[in-house]
């Protein structure tokens, strides 16, 4: 018996993913600006799904308040740009700001039990939203535009935004990927399986969860930055809306909680549903909510998780596989 990290399938697939990233980079050169904008939205969804899964699937932390960081990312960008910083630099700063703010929040939030954590994060998002609303410089309740982006020609702007989105997605996916492959990743799995047992083995549960929380803070902040870059206009009621959490929950539950590939699948699905049902209005949201609830009750592993379990398939090598030794490998 030996322990294996890479299988032929996962080697192929990882190589394929890298190629796909390179191919995607060519998108703005080929497609029209509105297609690029749509694909940017898809990347935002992927990023959000992966981050929410990092929290809930790998950390067991169900947050209904990640929109706090989305909002910080979006409004942070507007704020820094208004200070005279070049818009794309402002975006990087805003991402850092979101991550930085997540640290003090984590000191308090991570002590809370499941329901208190979920709704506590929601309340924190509401508090930040109210604070933003009170600030006239940030457009108060009516919203604000990132006018500084108008210095770029629309096609270039859309291209830069897309590349930024691609860069963010690749960076955060890679960060999570390496995190999970490291000893940290194994201890996260242990925490997920049995927190008390892991703690008794010396696994520093709190530090691990904090790392995931801060990573998700950065990631959701990045998503917020991309939202304002992509749509130019933001208002508190949309950017701090709990609707974002609803989307994240749907994507991860349907895609596959606790799997690496699942959230990506979920994001693609949500994107497909959104583009098909733009006129749907409340009906498609009813469908989303009902589907999320059904998956929580009946298919907790999500689509990808169920497939993975049935086929023993792992496309990206984040785990280990125990392989029965072939006859020629055992000693006589």
């Amino acid at each position, binding site marked *: 018996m030996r322990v294996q990290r890479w299988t032929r399938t996962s080697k192929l697939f990882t190589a394929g993913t890298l190629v796909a990233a390179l191919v995607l980079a060519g998108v703005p050169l080929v497609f029209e600006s509105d297609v690029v904008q749509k694909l940017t939205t898809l990347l935002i969804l992927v990023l959000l799904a992966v981050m929410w899964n990092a929290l809930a699937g790998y950390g067991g932390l169900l947050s209904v308040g990640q929109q706090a960081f989305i909002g910080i990312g979006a409004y942070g960008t507007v704020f820094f740009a208004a200070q005279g910083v070049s818009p794309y630099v402002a975006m990087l700063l805003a991402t850092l700001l979101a991550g930085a703010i997540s640290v003090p929040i984590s000191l308090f939030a991570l002590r809370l039990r499941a329901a208190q954590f979920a*709704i506590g994060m929601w309340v924190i998002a509401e508090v930040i939203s109210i604070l933003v609303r009170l600030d006239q410089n940030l457009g108060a309740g009516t919203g604000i535009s990132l006018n500084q982006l108008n210095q770029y020609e629309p096609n270039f702007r859309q291209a830069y935004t897309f590349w930024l989105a691609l860069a963010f997605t690749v960076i955060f996916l890679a960060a999570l990927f390496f995190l999970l492959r490291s000893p940290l990743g194994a201890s996260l799995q242990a925490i997920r399986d049995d927190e008390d047992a892991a703690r008794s083995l010396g696994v520093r549960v709190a530090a691990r969860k904090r790392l995931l929380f801060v990573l998700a803070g950065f990631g959701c902040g990045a998503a917020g930055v991309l939202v304002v870059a992509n749509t130019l206009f933001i208002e508190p009621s949309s950017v701090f809306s709990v609707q974002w959490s609803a989307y994240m929950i749907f994507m991860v539950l349907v895609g596959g909680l606790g799997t690496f590939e699942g959230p990506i699948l979920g994001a693609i699905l949500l994107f497909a549903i959104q583009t098909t049902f733009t006129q749907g209005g409340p009906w498609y949201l009813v469908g989303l909510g009902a589907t999320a609830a059904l998956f929580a009750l009946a298919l907790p592993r999500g689509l990808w998780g169920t497939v993975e379990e049935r086929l023993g398939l792992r496309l990206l090598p984040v785990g280990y596989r125990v392989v029965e030794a072939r006859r020629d490998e055992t000693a006589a």
Partner: protein
Amino acid sequence: MTVTNAVLQGVFLGAFYAVLACGLSIMFGVMRIINLAHGDVAVLGAYIVYVIVERTGVPAFVAFAVALPVMVLLGYVLQLTVLERSLKSGILTPLLATFGLSIVIQNLLQLVFSPDVRSLGGSAGSVTTASWQVTSGLSVSALGLLVLVVAVLLFAALQLFLSKTRAGWIMRATAEDADAAELAGIDSRSVYARATAIAVGIAALGGLFLGIRSVFDPVSGPTQLIFAFETVVIGGMGSLWGTLLGGIALGVAQTVGAQIHPQFAVMAGHLLFLAVLIVRFGGGRLVLRTA
């Protein structure tokens, strides 16, 4: 408005929050479930009363007498279909399933009733607007007093139920140790269904009061949920009278906060909630640990 009057209004507001939170508290106390659709259930109750009022022209309170059994039945159905299943899985499942349910209810209401804002104040009679001027600075509204009296009676009735009736003992026993309860011959499934039915019925009462004292629309649910949850946490999770006190604390925080700045009302409540969480769970030890 003097501070004393603000506190008094806060007590009345708090009594409303307590009624709103009561069902959430019951479900948590008995099943350890936080129903994220609780606010939407209350709003649903308000809509059912609204429909009856619109169709028949009866006063809101009469309409409620009809809406209540419907809601109680809905509570049974909710438990036996969605919640029962979610109890058997992990801790996250009830939260996720009820969150999905919340979205379903909000959007179904939006489809049936349109996003327009409604109110039950008009059909509730003179109680909506009547008030007495106690002193030059203090005014007592009939509605506020009514809600306060109903809240106290409601909690007293629940207290009596839980401490003096066999059904109440059975519910407490199941809450304390469902496994031992089963072994003593108690059908925990039906106890849970009863608890949810009661919780949903009381939530509907909260919806009625919401509709009378202010307005509601299909997406009012989440706001009510946050206030209800804050009430339960401030008062102490799992404590019945704590929920009443928590509601009053939240109400007073909001009305006093409004004195400082009109937009500060809700924020004051959030800050009180977060402060309680920090003190109770954070232990005040916000020291950076070396990892």
